[in-house]
């Protein structure tokens, strides 16, 4: 068993093994959906899913590190909406697009900073603070514009969302970039090590001289920024600034992160796992729609597949580990 170096490489690290198994679960899903509708496994549908999943991947990458550090950010969905309407409002008023986008990202940073600072300095639960922020950001979005803005958006509004470089849609490239940066940071930088330390054993990290507070605040700021970026990707793709988008997005993001192998209890997690988790979440609703499953049954199917995915994941993982131990 262990003879094969590739297999050995995979099972030698629990996290790596888990990621590979999650990938297998995804492939299984793809196989099943392809069987149900031939249009599922086409380049256009691949681009479609990828484009739709890009915002999820972007925000979930940021959420992954927040959760590795034992935090949580429920405000992402509302930040997405706020970012979307801020950028659109500014763009309509003639502010150059890069500046409008920048303003939206800054707003995300600001909300993230407020979240982080309150959580860290006051030592209160991230759930409540970011749930508060969820409400506040949604309210702000509605106050800016109660309905979607589209009249007067500049021609190049879609520059992020709909353009492509070669066959690769811009949203996907952006998501890949974000993932690459996060993967690099978590694995190859001091800051990355600090994230795991803070989540794994905050006291030990503090005693080792890690600046726990700054680490955490930075992660929340980045989570806000990435949620805002996700909002820009989404709203430039769909061609409007919409205060209604992103309701319930936080649960999707958290589901992606957890399917990807990061736990709420911190200290563990992998960006790559999250990407696969996000794609699983994205493929699921797309696949069910394309398979023509009746709308109400889709709820059931979604729930069943979600649970089955983690259960299969766990089982295979443990099975492989047991076999590995025996070999």
């Amino acid at each position: 068993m262990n003879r094969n170096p590739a297999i050995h490489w995979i099972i030698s690290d629990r996290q790596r093994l888990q990621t590979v198994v999650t990938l297998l679960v995804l492939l299984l899903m793809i196989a099943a959906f392809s069987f149900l509708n031939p249009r599922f496994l086409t380049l256009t549908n691949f681009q479609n899913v990828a484009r739709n999943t890009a915002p999820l991947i972007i925000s979930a990458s940021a959420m992954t590190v927040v959760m590795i550090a034992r935090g949580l950010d429920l405000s992402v969905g509302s930040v997405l909406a706020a970012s979307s309407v801020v950028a659109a409002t500014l763009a309509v008023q003639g502010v150059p697009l890069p500046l409008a986008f920048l303003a939206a990202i800054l707003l995300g940073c600001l909300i993230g900073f407020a979240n982080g600072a309150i959580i860290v300095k006051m030592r209160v639960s991230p759930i409540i603070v970011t749930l508060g922020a969820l409400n506040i950001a949604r309210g702000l979005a509605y106050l800016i514009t109660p309905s979607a803005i589209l009249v007067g958006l500049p021609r190049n509004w879609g520059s992020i969302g709909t353009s492509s470089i070669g066959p690769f849609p811009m949203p996907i490239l952006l998501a890949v970039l974000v993932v690459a940066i996060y993967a690099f940071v978590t694995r190859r930088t001091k800051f990355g090590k600090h994230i795991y330390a803070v989540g794994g054993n905050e006291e030990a990290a503090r005693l080792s001289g890690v600046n726990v507070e700054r680490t955490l605040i930075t992660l929340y700021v980045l989570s806000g920024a990435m949620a805002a970026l996700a909002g820009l990707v989404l709203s430039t793709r769909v061609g409007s600034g919409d205060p209604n988008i992103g309701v319930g997005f936080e649960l999707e993001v958290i589901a992606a992160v957890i399917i990807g192998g990061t736990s709420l209890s911190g200290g563990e997690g992998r960006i790559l796992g999250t990407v696969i988790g996000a794609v699983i979440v994205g493929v699921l609703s797309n696949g069910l729609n394309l398979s023509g499953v009746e709308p109400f049954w889709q709820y059931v199917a979604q729930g069943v597949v979600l649970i089955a995915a983690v259960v299969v994941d766990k089982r295979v993982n443990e099975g492989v580990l047991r076999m590995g131990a025996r070999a």
Partner: protein
Amino acid sequence: AEGPVALAAKSFSTELCAPKDPAAVADIPKAVSGFTGYEQAPGDWLALPDASPLKGKRVALSVMGLGQPFFLAIKKQWEMLAEKYGFELKVYDGRFDAGTVQKLVDDIIADAPDAVAFAPLDSGAAVPQVQRMLDAGLKVVTYNVQPAQVVAPRVFANDFAGSQLVGCNTARYFIEKFGDKKAIIGVVDLPSLPQVQDRKNGFLYGFKSLVPTATVAQSVDGGGVIDKANPAAADLLQGHPEINVIFGINNDSSLGTIAAMKAANLYSPEWGVVSSVDGSEPVMAELGSDESPLKAESGYPPYDFSVATFNLLGATLDGKSTKDTQVVVGYPPIKPTAEGIEAWLSRQYPR
């Protein structure tokens, strides 16, 4: 003395009411969504043809959210049409969620059906959504909520005018029952939907046309779903015991209100008057009951919507429509008599 139902039937009218005091309604915003400028009758669009160009085609139907009787009726109607005219139907549920609707648009594009009947959620967001489908080469017709710009053939009802009629009838009943008692209005609202703002404004326009002295005490956000409308209505009644007119922007809102009134022991026609729009079955039971304060309703017609959309989609497939083609279906006030209710239900919510 006449019972409330009889009184409501007596004061009922299908006519709009002209403002007694134009100043009283001057400040009310006109339509913010939809195309109230068109007054085209549905005419032939409501007739069932012998054969349809949709035959043998793959058709996608989207709904705002399947949890409401209105959209369920739409789905049911379309399933009957699919059966009768021999086309393949796939129904997409928007779950009343902007994100879900965005994604289903993309999934429809990926699935590339021959024709799409699309129900937008937000007028603004709908414009690029429809545009995306058109760009992908799909034949699209929209119904119910309308894109804020003209992009594709559409079927809609005039939310302002329809609600204005309820406003008039609510006022007529109010005057009949309470004479010149001061009217104080509460609204169980859903402020994040522009279409709904038309309903609210239409109602106020109609009501204040006949009762210019009426004032609005408060609008609360009832979310358009019964479990959120209920506590909001309870708060409304609690905070403003002087309220004697409540308008619910859809049936969930008025039903949540009715439940709140029951809990607060206010459920009685002597309290005042409740009205709303939609005309679904449970509200018809209230409308026809002498115990209930709900005494005016305009019907939002699922059958008409379905058939008109079906026909327009067929025409679009045949190249017989342009993006300007639009069908306005009626938004009739429902006469609160047994016959009136039966007439409405049997056509729009056939069993």
